[in-house]
């Protein structure tokens, strides 16, 4: 990857971090309602993965979706506006934190039912297979989603029909507050793919370049018509499951240990070793901070949805009353 592209990834990771820190503040101020699941700590996964896709490749993910939306190119302004439930949000303020989407940017949604979007991802890949194009569907989900039936039905179908789908497990080691060891019969999630003879790999998810390389290889393998592939990225969320998580299930030392391997810090060291000047990286960080602040300003200044929006878009077609 070219240096400029690497710097762009660095920008995206810092933008996610700063935007979400701002979102957490807005949540504390009561300006964001509902659930707010932060991606902080996991930025390398989505950033490296989506950098490896081609524009025609579809991304679909779970509810921890702000970072994925930003990586897919949805402007921070629209993401922040959606968090505030504003008319200018990606889903017109009707979806909220868990439902960012923009099909024009091939971001097919954050989905809030654990594992629920996996069969839908199979279907998107089926639609592309039926159309005869070479698009790849990239479906991201957490470790918790691999214990529900949806996961198994979706993986089985994808193998039986040789669908062009890349399954991406972000193993952040806890499904809400229950660790993988307490919830999953196998501790390596990738082993579940073995049951369906789906080739798979377990990769360090804190190193964005390792994520990128593994993703690129896997995406092109799927695109070549080989059927599904599963990647398991080992990662960690530094914040609670959602805002207000008392975090009784893990101790502070564990969190601190993982923070020493902060994906942004790791990447900064790598870039520094590649002779990128500290000043260049500092400028990128400042730009990300400015963009996050601008997004907050944009979102706060944006209008509320009209009340008439309440009854808009229930159906795509006019219905007889």
């Amino acid at each position, binding site marked *: 990857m070219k240096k400029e592209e690497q710097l762009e990834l660095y920008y995206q990771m810092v933008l996610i971090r700063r935007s979400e820190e701002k979102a957490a503040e807005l949540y504390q101020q009561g300006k964001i309602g509902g659930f707010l699941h932060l991606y902080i700590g996991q930025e390398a996964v989505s950033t490296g993965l989506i950098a490896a896709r081609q524009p025609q490749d579809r991304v679909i993910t779970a509810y921890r979706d702000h970072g994925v939306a930003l990586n897919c190119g949805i402007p921070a302004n629209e993401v922040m506006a959606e968090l505030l439930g504003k008319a200018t949000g*990606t889903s017109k*303020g009707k*979806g909220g934190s868990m*439902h960012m989407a923009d099909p024009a940017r091939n971001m097919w949604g954050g989905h809030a039912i654990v594992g629920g979007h996996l*069969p839908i991802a199979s279907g998107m890949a*089926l639609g592309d297979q039926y*159309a005869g194009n070479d698009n790849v569907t990239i479906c991201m989900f957490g470790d918790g989603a691999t214990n529900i039936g949806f996961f198994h*039905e979706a993986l089985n179908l994808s193998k039986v029909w040789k669908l062009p789908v890349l399954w991406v497990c972000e193993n952040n080691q806890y499904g809400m507050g229950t660790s993988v060891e307490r919830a999953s019969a196998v501790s390596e999630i990738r082993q579940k793919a073995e049951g369906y003879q789906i080739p798979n790999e377990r990769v360090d998810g804190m190193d964005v370049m390792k994520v990128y390389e593994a993703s690129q290889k896997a995406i092109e393998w799927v695109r070549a018509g080989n059927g599904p592939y599963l990647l398991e990225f080992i990662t960690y969320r530094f914040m609670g499951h959602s805002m207000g998580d008392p975090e009784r299930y893990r101790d502070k030392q564990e969190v601190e240990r993982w923070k020493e391997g902060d994906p942004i810090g790791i990447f900064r060291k790598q870039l520094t070793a590649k002779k990128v000047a500290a000043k260049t990286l500092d400028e990128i960080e400042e730009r990300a901070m400015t963009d996050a602040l601008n997004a907050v300003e944009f979102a706060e200044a944006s209008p509320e949805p009209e009340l008439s929006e309440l009854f808009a878009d229930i*159906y795509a077609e006019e219905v*007889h009353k």
Partner: protein
Amino acid sequence: MREAISQALMEEMDRDPAVFILGEEVGVWGGTYAVTKGFYDKYGPERVKDTPIAENAIIGAAIGAAMVGQRPVAELMTINFAFAAMDYIVNQAPKLHYMFGGQFKVPMVIRAVGGGGRQLGATHSQTPDAIFAHFPGLKVVSPGTPEDAKGLLKQAIRSDDPVLFIEHATMYQVRGDVPDEEYTIPIGKSKIQRPGSDVTIVTYCKGLELSMKAADELAGQGIQAEIIDLRTLRPLDMEPVLESFKKTNRAVIVEEGWKSYGVGAEVASRIYEEAFDYVDAPILRVAQKEVPLPYNRTLEQSALPQVPDIVAAVKEVLK
């Protein structure tokens, strides 16, 4: 009826290459109710897809394919298996358009066979239509004649919204005229299936068959029943119902599902809300007895609504 449904599928597959069928035993087997018999040979495995027995995968995949521009028709072998895919039918498909601010469309049809009367036991004999009609965003269609079945299914396939199309297991042999020329019937329009002046019978699907027989019997006794066939449960078209009721001032609602929280409860409430001044007698409901359907034929039939139940209810509201 079977032929009308098959024709609708075939015509739409010929018309639009985006239409394909997926489901359990729809292909090589030819459909467990033989609706897709011959399709596999005609259209091949790409357009008539046999699936694993995995309802979440079937309906989930249909949703995904619809989102990216195809027009899948997913078949549930019976509506009783819809419960295994409930998240997709009520919590995914009807929400995707609204929840993402209109960005996604789900032009998918789910065909499902429901109904009792075939001694299949409690888990395979249900008529749970009302449950699905509860959810905004889903269209729920359940025809009672071959003509309506064909026209409504064709329209359902062309619809940009998810449609649950409910057929009845004991009605595939029902005979009826179907127009020779190409036609569709709009979703969300109730229809007067039999004009009358003394009492309004509101019904749909299997209830229509029973109500028509009851109306014949009542006519012999000098009672003219007007039968309104809902055809679509959501969106519900109450106009012909209210119009008829304002004329007859008496109504009986006939459905095969359980009475509690059912279609009859909804229709009766709306009549009371919107035409209370015209009410001359309490509205009665004829529906399934509140039991899981038993296997034994006599017991099963005694739990299902029958023609004499409708005749008796009509006489009661005319007292």
